[in-house]
């Protein structure tokens, strides 16, 4: 277990850049992040951006952690404040003893003056006006100039930066030259005027050999390609849009017939999420692996169709890239607010399989698994990701593919199989696992049946008979019980392998994982005895209940106001809700380890557990 640190050391610090969106800062920020990654140092980047195209505040937070912690940091050691509108907020974000870098083309604003921090000024704007022509070029290159200053202050390898610029602008010599000039402007000014590097800075490591930088939406899209999905239908919505756009890109690369240039996929931009869901279900009914990607508002709209697919037993994968709700909410902020609605989406008795990836790598693998599960169980499967996982670049293990993989298409009777049976009945449970065999349209005259969302019996015939109706819905319930034994098992991080349960049991889900892992290390380092279970699928595996029952004090860490995971655990396992304490964070930003630690400690104080010296303070976010 690494020694948890409070940052501000070599390869162990965080910085944040505050700019105005639409000014081209994103490319400078990813240049910085990628350069650090290529130096072999574990790094995380979080883009905190507005629901807007141009003119509103945007931040990029980069954390460097030699120990490989990837959660968002609670405090930063250096802020680059380039947006006058957010000066007050930005200066407050610097930890005491930290640094603030501002554009000294203009006099130092009173707002930026603060005791206990060091203020560095570099005239980025003026230098760019002197060196470049045209407003657009000056604005864009000002970003590259601050990247150059940071390279000097933090000792980012200039060779790596040069290599990246050459890769990026290999075909545009003039742009390449301008970028080099801009980098040098910032770099040289910082070196000439300040002691470089700062006390916290970078030193080359070799920790990233088997890692990549990838966002969860691209990874999920790649999973869909590798799973053999052929039909995607969607309606654009933040933060899920990039999933379908990535699918399109990968398909244009991997799914074009070399001879005819024709496409081995169908990608339909639907008129709304209702239609997108209908197309997915229509394609699933016809036998294709089909999917959509959406966010909370889309999930609400799809709910009618989800009920149809559940009741008529049609496969389809639904990626939900959660954002802050309710209603339109904060479209560019993250949350885990759709857990409860997805579990039982649509009217009547329904329950759905849902998978919860914790990072982009898992988005890839669980996407593939989702396609297998949806066809095996002939029911919609949700892959529940979030904005942080979906849209931010994460450092994760290089994705691997096993060429022996073959899709699990579930029980599908072909013409040959149909020949051997007396009569095909669509909803007949022959194997006792709750799963009936289906046929695809066009197969054989013996395979025809009528799919209906209205009441039907096991032969798919319309019914208003209580017993015939109940026979079908009871089997659907059984099917989901079978699913709970097959879906991805929880991930356990126990303190005493083979020993007894720890005092504290932390339960969490999805994108909280990185912060919880770090918090667990800190709590254990402070002498607490902690086990951690990350739930990876719904309906819950039997081991979920066992974990809760075996821990006297359980904390459920999640990113929503109402403790939805805790409620779901209580409903599904029968364990009393009060047996679990919620640790919640729902302001829309990725979770930090501090919040988890302070939430757990607050709970421990209430239960009379022994006091330990607390780690860095944070806003208490505990509720019970």
């Amino acid at each position: 277990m690494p020694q948890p640190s409070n940052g501000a050391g070599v390869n162990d610090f965080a910085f944040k850049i505050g700019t105005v969106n639409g000014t081209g800062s994103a490319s400078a920020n990813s240049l910085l992040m990628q350069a650090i990654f290529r130096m072999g140092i574990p790094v995380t980047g979080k883009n905190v951006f507005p629901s807007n195209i141009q003119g509103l505040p945007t931040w990029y937070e980069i954390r460097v952690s030699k120990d490989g912690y990837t959660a968002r940091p609670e405090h930063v050691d250096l802020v680059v404040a380039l947006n006058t509108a957010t000066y007050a907020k930005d200066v407050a974000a610097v930890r005491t003893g930290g640094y603030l870098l501002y554009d000294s083309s203009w006099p130092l604003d009173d707002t930026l003056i603060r005791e206990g921090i060091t203020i560095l000024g570099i005239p980025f704007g003026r230098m760019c006006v002197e060196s470049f022509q045209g407003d657009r070029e000056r604005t864009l290159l000002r970003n590259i100039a601050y990247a150059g200053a940071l390279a000097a202050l933090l000792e980012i390898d200039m060779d790596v930066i040069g290599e990246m610029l050459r890769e990026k602008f290999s075909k545009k010599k003039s742009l390449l030259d301008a970028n080099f000039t801009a980098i040098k402007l910032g770099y040289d000014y910082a070196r000439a005027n300040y002691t470089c590097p700062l006390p916290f800075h970078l030193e080359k490591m070799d920790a990233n050999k088997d890692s990549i930088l990838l966002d969860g939406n691209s990874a999920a899209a790649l999973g869909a390609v590798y799973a053999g999905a052929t039909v995607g239908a969607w309606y654009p919505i933040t933060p899920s849009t990039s999933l379908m756009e990535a699918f399109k890109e990968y398909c244009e690369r991997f799914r074009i017939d070399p001879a005819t240039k024709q496409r081995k996929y169908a990608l339909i931009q639907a008129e709304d999420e209702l239609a997108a869901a209908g197309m997915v279900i229509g394609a699933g009914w016809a036998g294709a692996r089909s999917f959509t990607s959406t966010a909370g508002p889309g999930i609400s709209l799809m709910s009618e169709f989800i009920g149809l697919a559940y009741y008529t037993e049609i496969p389809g994968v639904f990626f939900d890239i959660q954002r802050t709700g309710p209603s339109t909410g904060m479209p560019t902020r993250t949350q885990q607010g759709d857990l409860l609605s997805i579990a039982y989406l649509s009217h009547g008795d329904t329950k759905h399989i849902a998978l919860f990836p914790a990072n982009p790598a898992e988005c890839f693998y669980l996407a593939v698994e989702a396609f297998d599960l949806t066809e095996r169980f002939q029911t919609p499967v949700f892959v529940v990701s979030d904005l942080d996982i979906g849209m931010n670049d994460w450092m994760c293990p290089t994705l691997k593919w096993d060429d022996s993989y073959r899709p699990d298409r579930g029980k599908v009777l072909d013409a040959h199989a149909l020949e051997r049976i007396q009569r095909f009945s669509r909803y007949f449970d022959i194997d006792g696992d709750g799963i009936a065999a289906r046929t695809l349209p066009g197969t054989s005259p013996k395979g025809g049946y009528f799919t209906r969302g209205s009441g039907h019996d096991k032969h798919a015939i319309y019914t208003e008979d209580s017993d015939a109706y109940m026979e079908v819905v009871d089997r659907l319930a059984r099917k989901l019980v079978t699913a709970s034994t097959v879906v991805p098992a929880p991930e356990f991080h126990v303190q005493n392998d083979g020993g007894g349960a720890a005092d504290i049991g932390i339960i969490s889900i999805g994108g909280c994982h990185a912060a919880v892992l770090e918090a667990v290390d800190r709590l254990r380092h402070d002498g607490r005895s902690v086990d951690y279970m990350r739930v990876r699928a719904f309906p819950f595996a039997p081991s979920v209940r066992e974990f809760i029952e075996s821990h006297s004090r359980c904390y459920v860490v999640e990113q929503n106001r109402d403790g939805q995971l805790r409620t779901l655990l209580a409903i599904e396992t029968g364990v009393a809700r009060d047996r679990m304490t919620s640790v919640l964070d729902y302001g829309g930003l990725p979770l930090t380890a501090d919040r988890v630690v302070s939430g757990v400690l607050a709970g421990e104080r209430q239960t009379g557990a022994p006091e330990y010296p607390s780690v860095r303070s944070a806003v208490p976010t505990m509720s019970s």
Partner: protein
Amino acid sequence: MTSITKPPVRHPSLPKNALGLTKREYEGAMSTLCAGCGHDSVTAALVQALWELDLPPHRAAKMSGIGCSSKTTAYFLRQSHGFNGVHGRMPSLATGANAANKDLAYIGISGDGDSLSIGLGQLCHAIRRNVNMLYVLENNGVYGLTKGQFSASADVGSKSKRGEANVQPPIDPVLLALSLGATFVARSFSGDKTQLVPILKAAMRHNGFAMIDVISPCVSFNDHETSTKSYRYTRNHYHDIAPVDFVPLRREISAEIPDKSLVTVTMHDGSVVRFRKVDSEYDPRDRDAAYAYVRARQAKGEVVTGLLHIDENAADMHGVSGTVDTPLVELPYEELCPGSGALAELMEEYR
């Protein structure tokens, strides 16, 4: 369609089509609609048309939403897969199914409530995409299953059974389809099987979205004296632009009939549609003219029927998006997965 339970035994002298099937094999479950319902006549015309077209029943997919009309997909082609989805959303199900398997014959049945109110958006976008399917809109101006509310196709002034007059202007599915660029637009009447059957056949052979608005009176809630969607009203205001002959590909056309009033359109698969005795000013290939003609006749209180517009040159959804000729569902997995080598190469781009 059948309204009475028939014995499973087939009379040996029942005529057979090229597949050796009798019309009975194109029928389905017993209709549960009201006796005299226009929809049952549409179903009968469909059975006739599909039988005459020698369509292998299991190669068809029947799609519908919710409502009386949508129930009828159970009353024909019992060997086909059918999908009775949710209200107004049949077009998206059909679009997805067609995207996955373009080789099936998609038969969509809808109504004026299903298509023009709750499902108006989906109908418009299926037309826009030119999804290759038959779309029959069984139009009676009324919500039957909920007992008599006006639908969006009810004419201004048409009175409900209780005497209440409709005040909101109607949405005319034919004008809507023409303005959206539909590639096959027809209007017919459930009471005129002679007209409806060849139109249905041509629509089935059309490569793209074929919409047929069929006036199909509701005997229980909208067939009274003061209704403009009744049998009597429709018969009295009926104007057939041109009787249509559908000539399938396999039948040789021996000689061109030298008749100035004859318009022929060759279908995607080589079949031919012949319009007989067309009004001199009418050309079904001219969308704008068709629109103007329908409007002009409407102003005179006439219901123009027939195959009003046909465009055989437009590409369907697959043609536009350039998908492979093989239905996507038939592509082997090996052709879809790029494999470990490609992934390893791709990963290098993320370092």
